[in-house]
């Protein structure tokens, strides 16, 4: 399969990478850039562990090709700079094994940016796309709401 050299904007830095046309954004972030915060969980869009932020919106990076990200602004968990949701996850014990956490945080972070006044229904609509197997979700709910409240 043919390779392409592309420029990606990741965490406000330009990166030149060579990828196969079939390489997903997830594979590229992890394998070519060492950004292993986004996790593979199903490679099928079901679990949300690979969620990153593309142009302000949450995106499952296993469902997006690296070549599709050209010209877009990609933010991964490594690109968050002390976002309030990170501290809220710590204070509310909103993770245990931590594997789903980067994806959940990226989704929550995008939600808070897009809908600072999100109601229960909106929060559910957004967060039901990710799976956490350790917590009861109550902790995550508390973390998100604690940040929304401060906004």
């Amino acid at each position: 399969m043919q390779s392409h050299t592309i420029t990606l904007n990741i965490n406000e830095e330009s990166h030149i990478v060579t990828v196969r046309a079939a390489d997903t954004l997830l594979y590229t972030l992890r394998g070519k850039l060492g950004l292993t915060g986004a996790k593979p969980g199903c490679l099928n869009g079901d679990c949300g562990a690979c969620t990153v932020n593309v142009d302000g919106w949450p995106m499952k990076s296993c469902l997006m090709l690296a070549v599709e990200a050209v010209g877009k602004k990609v933010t991964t968990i490594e690109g968050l700079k002390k976002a309030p949701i990170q501290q809220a996850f710590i204070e509310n014990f909103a993770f245990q094994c931590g594997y789903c956490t980067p994806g959940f945080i990226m989704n929550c972070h995008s939600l808070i940016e897009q809908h600072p006044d999100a109601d229960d229904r909106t929060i559910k609509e957004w967060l039901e796309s990710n799976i956490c197997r350790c917590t009861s979700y109550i902790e995550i709910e508390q973390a998100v709401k604690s940040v929304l409240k401060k906004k």
Partner: protein
Amino acid sequence: MEVIGKSVIRKEAVDKVTGRAKYTHDYQKIPLLSGKMVISPYGHAKIVNIDTSEAWKVPGVRAILAGKQYPLTGEAIRDRPPIAVDKVRYHGEPVALVVADTPAQAKTAADLIKVQYELLPVVNSPTQAFQKDAPLVHERLGEYKKEADSHPVPDTNIATLIKIRKGNIEKGWAESDTVVEASFSFAPSDHVALETRCATAEILPDGNIIIMTSSQAPFMVKRLIADYFGEDMGKIIVRTPLVGGAYGGKAPVQLEVLAYLASKEVGGKPVKILNTREEDILTSPCHIGLDATVKFGANRSGKITVAEILYLWDGGAYSDKAIDLTRSGATDCTGPYNIENLWCNSYCMYTNHPYAAPFRGFSHSELSFAIERTMDLLAQKLNIDPLELRYINAIMPGNTTPTRVRLNKSNVGNLQKCIEKVRGLIKWDEGPVTVLNDRFIRVKGVSCSWKTSTIDTDAPSGVILTFNRDGSINLMSGVVEIGTGTKTILAQILAERLKMDVNKIHVRMEVDTQTTPEHWKTVASRGTFMGGRAVLKAAEDVIHQLKELAACVLRSPKEDLEIANSRVFLRDDPAIGLHFKEIGYGYKYPNGNTVGGQIIGRGSYILRHLTPLDPETGAGKPGPEWTVAAYGVEIEFDKRDFTYRLVKAATVVDIGRVMNEKAAIGQVMGAMSMGLAFAGRETFYFDELGRVLNPQLRTYRPLRYGENPEYLVGFVETPQIDGPYGARGVGEHGLMGMPGALGNALSTAAGVSLHNLPLIPELIWKAKEANK
């Protein structure tokens, strides 16, 4: 208590919210070859031919492992070829393994391998496996190497039988006035840890075998690879970084063996095998299924006088950990009730299903569903309040367990207290049913559970403490951080014992079997107990060394010294003393002379007085203590279409002592969440060929955000005297009562006795139709 009980933030918290926390698959190097399995599409079939010729043509392919006999593997019985030869016994079984330079090449090649199968009759349930004319899953069962306490029956599908005989059955039946008997059944399901299993292996020229794996049992990987393949144990170095969820599913050893064989095949180069989600569900071991028949006799006042119990566990195609699960199910077969006359046969059955791993609760959530549903049927027949029936029969100090361990006020928690507390939490006295309108009702169900941890009688746990020059301490334990926060609890125990700031204790998260002392396996809610005891012993060692040195420097008897706030000082004059940083690396006199050296503390712990079970009666001591719990679930039920919404779920567990409040509540709530998913929706759907029809997270659906109920958690604290600060295990217990409590609530709501899992509307509809 200064540190114990406090909601100390877990030590790896910042790494986990910044994406820096590393799991096995996050470690990359060049070169790192990629292994890709070809898996069986059928439950039971003869392998007629494997054609790898097209696959070899794919660029980058370095090896293809197929059709070759390797030593058989398996923990209790060596019954499993790492890669199938001659025949496949479950859907998902590896039949070939391709090793290539990149994952894409390996996948391309694996897809080109053509395997020709000839279908064999499928054993699709443990009950079918138990029939005399059932097809055999293992024709050569009698020839396998096995552990002494595995009891396979050749020419059958019985991998083992554990018998429990206590008291006098005839007497028990004679004393009973009311009898209930019921059967229950559910298929295997999955753990769904978000991190799929992953292992890498590399064999260095000097013979060292370096394995990295997402495992709860790195020390078992080392032991088994040495044992299976005749390697030097000391040359096997197993590394386990953070693990992304496990729940028992990462206790078995599987991918590590494949990675080792793959690396060997390519001259020792490093090879990684990462399960896809589908492989993680199908190929790697699953959550055990069960067919159970329970018969209870009770007198008029509700006292249970006798029980006869038959468990047929769905061990799947290979016995591996299912033998232990079968034993564990037998040891606590009655649930947390005092039944003096008891007969139980617990069989591990071979079927053509994916084979079983431990699952959070280790047989107890499964058997609890059967026992707790039977308890409600008994209550109904006796016309006694279900919670009252449980209270009357609750296990207590002075009673004996099914394996005849005499209970005392330390080795069992206080179940009656748990029941009383849950009664208040779920407002049981308001009554089990509230009618909202013509269509909707709110219904409550209750249950109880207990559990001891049936682990090896010689299972060890060790801890090493080293000092830094600033007086802070490094803590190294073989406990794997699988998400339970146990390593942080261990730091709290150390801080409490040394009366020091927990922030000055640095915990090493990774386990490395060469330099980390062994903790047998991070399973069975035993990390805090065993690791904690080892920490306490290591703390004693450190205290001894600190005082010894300080006594010399301070020219004082050792007995006059105290330790607190990172200092050793005179009890009667605390101003005179030395900071840890002055003696942690030896004491340096003003002229440069130095005495002592780096202080290194060591502690190890091994469970005491455990024995194997007697093969005829089951008598023996399987575990150190019994944690007990009581549960309630409230649902809103739609009488029109039998759908329901989870409203509340409650657990009260006798935890001995709360070590970290928020972490403990989190463990219990998380376990309830998993238990409700197991009870209410998760199962493998098999077709007639033994194929799992739903090996993806869109067809196999764990609970998602917003589908959860409100959670209520209560603790009772009856100290386990030999536990660290009285603590008992708590990682599993929130889960164990959920299937029973949900089943009881729904049976009441629907007015029909439910005997299967998962408890989906279609099941309720079928049960009602069958009752018409």
